[in-house]
């Protein structure tokens, strides 16, 4: 029962990532693309947590944390570059 619900959740998350990928490809501006990228990486944190549950490994959550950190820094760097703050 629990696993079925979590499989459905994982499918929905994947579907959401694909939908965000559409915006990443479509654009139209670079800020739109980086926004879609940010949404995708934040979403993938949830996906990594699900994978950690299915494999029963807590250490995957460390990977999720690093992922969140890198996504945050990446967005900040590109946003500051766009506004000529570097």
């Amino acid at each position, binding site marked *: 029962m629990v696993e079925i619900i979590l499989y459905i959740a994982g499918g929905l998350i994947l579907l959401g990532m694909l939908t965000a990928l559409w915006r990443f490809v479509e654009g139209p501006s670079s800020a739109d693309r980086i926004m879609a990228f940010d949404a995708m990486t934040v*979403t993938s*944190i949830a996906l990594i947590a699900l994978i950690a549950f299915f494999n029963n490994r807590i250490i995957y*959550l460390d990977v*999720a*944390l690093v992922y*969140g950190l890198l996504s945050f820094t990446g967005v*900040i760097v590109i946003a500051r570059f*766009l506004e000529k703050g570097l």
Partner: protein
Amino acid sequence: MEIRMLIGSIVTLIGAIFIFLGALGIVRMPDLYNRLQSGTKASTLGTILSIAGIGIINPAWAGKAFIIISFVMMTNPVSSHTLARGAHHLGIPLSKKTVIDKLKEAEANEKKEEQ
């Protein structure tokens, strides 16, 4: 035992639904700022709920889940704000539906005062 796992999985499912709705918002909304509103913010809540659900299912993971949740809640609004600020400075246009842009007026006023 079983009920706790059921609650956790349902919380995760609600989070996944929010993630999907947020992604839908990213595609449907007309300009960058509205996309940031519906997309990034909804996916933030979705991620928080998903990880909280995993933490409920597995109480031994609660500490790390709490760290991830507080980290996401701390950093995501900051990156959204920085991106919106940069985009507005860059002059990425707002949609035609927009009613008012006080920030543009304020920046124009400041430029006038400098001259």
